[in-house]
């Protein structure tokens, strides 16, 4: 049973289409990430759910009720803004209490809930501070507390980690996920960071050019991208145009025959294999040979660039502490048929 439902939601600005016919249904308690490059329409979609942008067409249903034309102030959704948008002239406690005051929660009950909400985000000690006296991470948690304090049916997060540095971001992601599980609030988050989407989301909604490209659980989307865009935006991928599908489980790419397990694909196709699925080999299993043109050490793994007849390929190997192939080496590459994907071909410049 879907709790929040977007039906054919579109937004046009003059003749520019920001969001086109977006259909999405979110289950109660689910954590959904809208992921995509800038300008893909993810923020506009969130703005429409929040009520700050009026859809050109389509409907938004919350728990079965049409809220498309309801004012933002009457939707009761909790929103965390990219800039956090804390009220600078109010203390942390007043910030968190503001929404409850608008709802008409009595003063006694209000201060009790302010205290418990601040505890929830580990800011119990900061109640009397002003926003500018807090660090970036603390401000973000105040914004979260302020949004949660009104006990919203849906929590909307607009790039909430954008202003944090990498290390703090990781900590906050884990904390946010734990918090969302504890509170159980239905959450929609907008991000352009694929790692963040995979860390947090139950389901990733990948958007491109105003359209939803693919919707899936992070693991499924990573393992079964439905096209070039999905495979390269969520993780890295080697993508080749298939010249000819042979009978059975073989395809030709630039004169090289490659194995696949997706035997029932037809039409113009592309062949995808993830870098970490590729291994060096020197036996009969070698699919393609090449020369290592670059090698980069990334701590927990090595990244190799190999020039092959297929084109330049990327592959990664876990850092096992053993000696690795060096730049300039001639190597053979292999991978398993079930790790390769055949997808319908899309234009290269997406």
């Amino acid at each position, binding site marked *: 049973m879907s709790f929040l439902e977007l039906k054919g939601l579109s937004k046009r600005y003059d003749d520019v289409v920001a969001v086109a016919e977006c259909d999405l249904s979110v289950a109660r308690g689910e954590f959904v990430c809208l992921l995509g490059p800038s300008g893909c329409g993810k923020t506009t979609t969130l703005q429409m759910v929040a009520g700050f942008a009026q859809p050109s067409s389509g409907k938004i249903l919350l728990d079965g009720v049409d809220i498309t034309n309801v004012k933002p102030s009457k939707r009761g959704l909790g929103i965390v803004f990219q800039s956090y948008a804390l009220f*600078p002239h109010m203390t942390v406690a007043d910030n968190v209490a503001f929404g409850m005051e608008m709802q008409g929660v009595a003063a006694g009950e209000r201060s009790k809930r302010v205290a418990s909400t601040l505890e929830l985000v580990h800011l119990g000690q900061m109640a009397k501070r002003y926003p*500018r006296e807090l660090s970036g991470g603390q401000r973000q948690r105040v914004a979260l507390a302020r949004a949660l304090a009104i006990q919203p049916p849906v929590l909307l997060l607009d790039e909430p980690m954008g202003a944090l540095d990498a290390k703090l971001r990781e900590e906050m992601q884990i904390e946010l996920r734990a918090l969302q599980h504890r509170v159980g609030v239905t959450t929609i988050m907008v991000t352009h960071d694929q790692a963040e989407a995979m860390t947090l989301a139950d389901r990733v909604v990948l958007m491109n050019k105003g359209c939803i490209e693919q919707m899936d659980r992070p693991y499924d989307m990573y393992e079964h991208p439905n096209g070039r865009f999905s495979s390269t935006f969520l993780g890295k991928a080697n993508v080749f145009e298939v010249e000819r599908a042979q009978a059975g489980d073989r395809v030709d790419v630039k004169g090289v025959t490659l194995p696949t397990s997706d035997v029932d694909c037809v039409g113009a196709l592309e062949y995808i294999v993830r870098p970490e699925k590729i291994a060096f080999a020197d036996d009969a299993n070698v699919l393609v040979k090449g020369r290592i043109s670059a090698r980069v050490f990334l701590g927990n793994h090595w990244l190799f660039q190999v020039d092959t007849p297929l084109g330049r390929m990327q592959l990664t190997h876990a850092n096992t502490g053993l000696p690795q192939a060096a730049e300039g080496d001639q190597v053979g590459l292999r991978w398993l048929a079930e790790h390769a994907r055949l997808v319908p071909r899309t234009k290269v410049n997406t």
Partner: protein
Amino acid sequence: MIFKRNALPYWLSAPSVVMMLAFVALPLVITLSLSIYPFMAGGGVGDHVTIANYAELVSDDYYLVIFGRTFGMAILVTLISILIGVPEAYVLSRLSERWRAISIVIVLGPMLISVVVRTLGWAVLLGNEGVINKVLLAAGLINEPVKMMFTFTGVVIALVHVLVPFMVLAVWASLQKLDAATEQAAESLGAGLWTVLSRIVFPQVIPGVLSGGLIVFALAASAFATPAIIGGRRLKVVPTTIYDEFLGNLNWPLGAALAVVLVAIVLIVSMGMNRLIERRYKQVFL
């Protein structure tokens, strides 16, 4: 000649410092010293130090009324400028780029015209035979002209018109720093338009309102041309009284004493306000 690196700022600021000393500090000191010498009949200045001039200001109701009128007027002009200027600045800041550029020219345009010319314009509008009265009479709303020239009300109206742009600019500067998302945040938390404006927007621009208020207050209290033209000979304020003492009665010491008191009161109010702003808002904004 080689300057030491850290001496450069002093050299750079030297011209303006010399200008300030010569044309602001020195006249002030001369005025101050002039005010503590007695007035001699016929326009001369005595040679012994006295507080007689100040004693006259304090003891004579005539001057107290003028001071009261001047600062009452300044406060009223400041309050009306806030009431007009704050919404005006907010609306301006919400306009689209193109309309904003046009509107700013309209708001600031009057400042390109001499105060005297603008005030004469108000005299044309406010007179018994003026445009406003003619229109009201023709519309049958009034039976006889409403007296606006040479009244307190007339001076306040003209001064507000002259000074409102300063308020708009100060509040505008504050609004530039305001994160528009705070308004959306308040809205998402259930606040209506009025609550957003009064609880979220206005408190954030208070520093601008206070600094704009300071400018308007100081300029209104020391305004000369507008009270002189609209207020006329009878409705005296401190600046016009100073003028009369210096050039009419040739009582330079008394005029100087008036000037010193005016400067002192404006300074005290300004510094008090500044202190208040710093203490109250340091934690929040600065």
